[in-house]
């Protein structure tokens, strides 16, 4: 994985010093909260319901064991012994003190980590495929391109006061595991007819109150123009994105109002101008970055089968292991979704355990997924049995990846000042219901996603089943949505009808699941059946 050189290290160290000084001026009253707020946000520090919350960047979701240990230590030293892995592959802490935040950031910098631009109206942490470098279906490892973009977007002087936040995603396979087209800019690394590698740009996707699937703006940007083209996309947005209405300020609205062709035309004009400016790093910089992501020393001649005599283990292998490009290996997803648990939360002890397992079983690497789980990307099949036993000891052996118990949920009203309703208790009750009725495994792949407000941090628009918490005259109410997907078959879920109370929404999910079980044809996932039979049969069951 990428390692800082003296320059990268100096940049994060300088940032810590800058924020320490800004915090001092805030505490001394030299700057107001209005002036300080965007500064602390661009260092990941929110003021949430109960305290300050700090979001730490995990660039393209990749961590080594030293970093994961450090995250655990931070949870103990500055927080209350746990952290929450997020849908943008980051981790956040819920109980941070402003006066200690600079020290926390200094501790992060010691392990080549930071919280830079994890919030605020700027280019945020860049997300990617959690199986990068492991997936059999990838063209190349997308992370060198994400790292190049990370450096370009960090402290970019022109783009720190954008109309609104801005999220990049970079993938390099046709199977989308990172919700690429639901980002402000989604990049797919592709190969053209001449066999050259370049980037397809999808611009103007997003969830929130106006969900949109990003249209293709340019089929092929050569690698030696990647930064320049990105700069052109951002400049057009910075100049013309709406600033009169916060809810219409994302780039998706600009692209939608201009039309994708007109937006693309304006970008091309700016791009032609910027090409003259010589702002692009040389390809040598990309070549410098690439070896950091070279394959680890995979062994050959490894067994390709595990001992499946233990049923529990066999179930876990079937749901939590993903084929690997190297024979004898799999990528293992550690579920942070125990039955009745808080999706995405991990205790410091669990973080230490995952760090040790990453070191011992996965070439010192782990990944955070947008579904709020952790991946050990390179595990020998022959060692899965012992890995499983160790995961079980740390309460990390839940076998439910991409099943109904593997719920994405935002923190909701239990933690978030924007939320209208609690998300976590709904997730807990649904996972308990489907454990009790035994239907979880029967349902197969069923992605359930819960947001506690319209901002959609819980990706409810992209759930096969989505749940949106709303405020109905001071009480929590939940709308049900069906038919969304964040994958390569991206679609936006539709609301079924009137909402439900907390008990009602759990029943409603079960009814929708039962419609699928009754109507499914061979090999169909819930989503496939919904797409074939449409909303009506579900509505009949829900509102009869």
């Amino acid at each position, binding site marked *: 994985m990428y390692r800082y050189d003296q320059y990268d290290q100096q940049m994060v160290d300088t940032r810590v010093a800058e924020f320490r000084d800004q915090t001092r*001026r805030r505490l001394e009253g030299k700057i107001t909260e209005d002036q300080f707020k965007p500064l602390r946000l661009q260092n990941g520090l929110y003021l949430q319901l109960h305290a300050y919350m700090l979001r730490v960047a995990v660039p393209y979701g990749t961590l080594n064991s030293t970093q994961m240990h450090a995250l655990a230590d931070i949870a103990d030293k500055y927080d209350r012994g746990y952290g929450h892995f997020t849908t943008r592959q980051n981790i956040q802490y819920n109980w941070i003190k402003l006066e200690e935040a600079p020290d926390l950031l200094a501790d992060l910098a010691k392990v080549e980590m930071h919280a830079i631009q994890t919030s605020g*109206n700027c280019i945020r942490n860049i997300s990617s495929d959690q199986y990068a470098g492991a997936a059999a279906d990838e063209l190349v490892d997308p992370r060198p391109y994400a790292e190049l973009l990370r450096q370009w977007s960090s402290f970019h002087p*022109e783009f720190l006061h954008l109309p609104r936040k801005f999220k990049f995603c970079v993938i390099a396979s046709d199977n989308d595991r990172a919700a690429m087209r639901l980002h402000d800019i989604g990049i797919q690394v592709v190969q053209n007819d001449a066999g050259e590698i370049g980037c397809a740009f999808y611009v103007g996707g997003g969830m929130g109150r106006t969900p949109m699937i990003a249209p293709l703006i340019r089929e092929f940007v050569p690698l030696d123009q990647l930064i320049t083209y990105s700069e052109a996309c951002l400049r057009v947005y910075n100049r013309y994105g709406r*600033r009169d209405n916060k809810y219409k300020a994302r780039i998706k609205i600009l692209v939608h109002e201009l039309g994708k062709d007109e937006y693309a035309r304006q970008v091309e004009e700016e791009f032609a101008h910027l090409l003259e400016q010589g702002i692009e*790093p040389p390809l040598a910089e990309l070549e410098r970055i690439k070896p950091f992501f070279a394959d680890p020393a995979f062994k050959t001649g490894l067994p390709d089968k595990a001992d499946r005599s233990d049923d529990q283990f066999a179930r876990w292998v079937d749901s939590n292991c993903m084929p690997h490009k190297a024979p004898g290996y799999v990528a293992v997803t550690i579920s942070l979704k125990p039955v009745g648990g808080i999706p995405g939360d991990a205790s410091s002890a669990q973080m230490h355990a995952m760090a040790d397992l990453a070191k011992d079983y996965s070439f010192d690497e782990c990944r955070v997924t947008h579904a709020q789980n952790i991946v050990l990307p390179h595990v020998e099949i022959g060692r899965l049995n012992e890995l499983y036993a160790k995961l079980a000891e740390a309460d990390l052996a839940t076998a439910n990846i991409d099943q109904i118990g593997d719920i994405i949920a935002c923190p909701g009203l239990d933690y978030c000042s924007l939320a209208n309703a609690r998300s976590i208790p709904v997730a807990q009750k649904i996972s308990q219901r489907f454990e009790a009725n035994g239907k979880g495994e029967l349902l197969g792949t069923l992605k359930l996603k819960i947001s506690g407000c319209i901002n959609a941090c819980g990706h409810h628009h992209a759930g096969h089943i989505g749940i949106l918490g709303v405020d109905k005259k001071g009480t929590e109410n939940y709308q049900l949505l069906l038919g969304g997907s964040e994958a390569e078959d991206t679609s936006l879920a539709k609301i079924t009808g009137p909402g439900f109370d907390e008990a009602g929404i759990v029943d409603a999910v079960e009814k929708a699941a039962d419609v699928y079980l009754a109507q499914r044809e061979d090999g169909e996932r819930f989503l496939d059946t919904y797409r074939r039979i449409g909303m009506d049969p579900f509505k009949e069951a829900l509102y009869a």
Partner: protein
Amino acid sequence: MPDNTLGTSPDDVQFRFRDDEVVDHAAVTVDSFLDQSNAAAVRIEPGDNARDLLPHLDRIKLVEVNFPSFMDGRGYSSARVLREAGYEGEIRAVGEVLIDQLAIMRRCGFDAFAPDNELDAADAEHAFSLWDNVYQKTTDGRAPIWQKRHG
């Protein structure tokens, strides 16, 4: 003073990174500027298109870029657009100009600062000199990190 003039006076300029004499022309709006041939100073508001000025750069001595709110970042693009087109005169940041934006304004081509509220000189000096390195290439002449890595 006619109604269509506005802008800061040399006395309002708190920081300046130029050796030439401070420009003392009252700036006019972009619309007024385009209507008259003799103005040498112009003020760009966030919604103005800085590129409208490009045919006239040879007669402009001062561009003021106004930040009615420090959160509105369009002025950064305006300054860069002018510098990229070769404008070498003064670009003065005016309005809600704060300590923590000084360094990035410099990077985008601002070389004079006339904040609405006077800034603490020591804090400003610290802000201007804090960053030894930069990741991006702009027109400010600083070598980005990738250039230092690869020569």
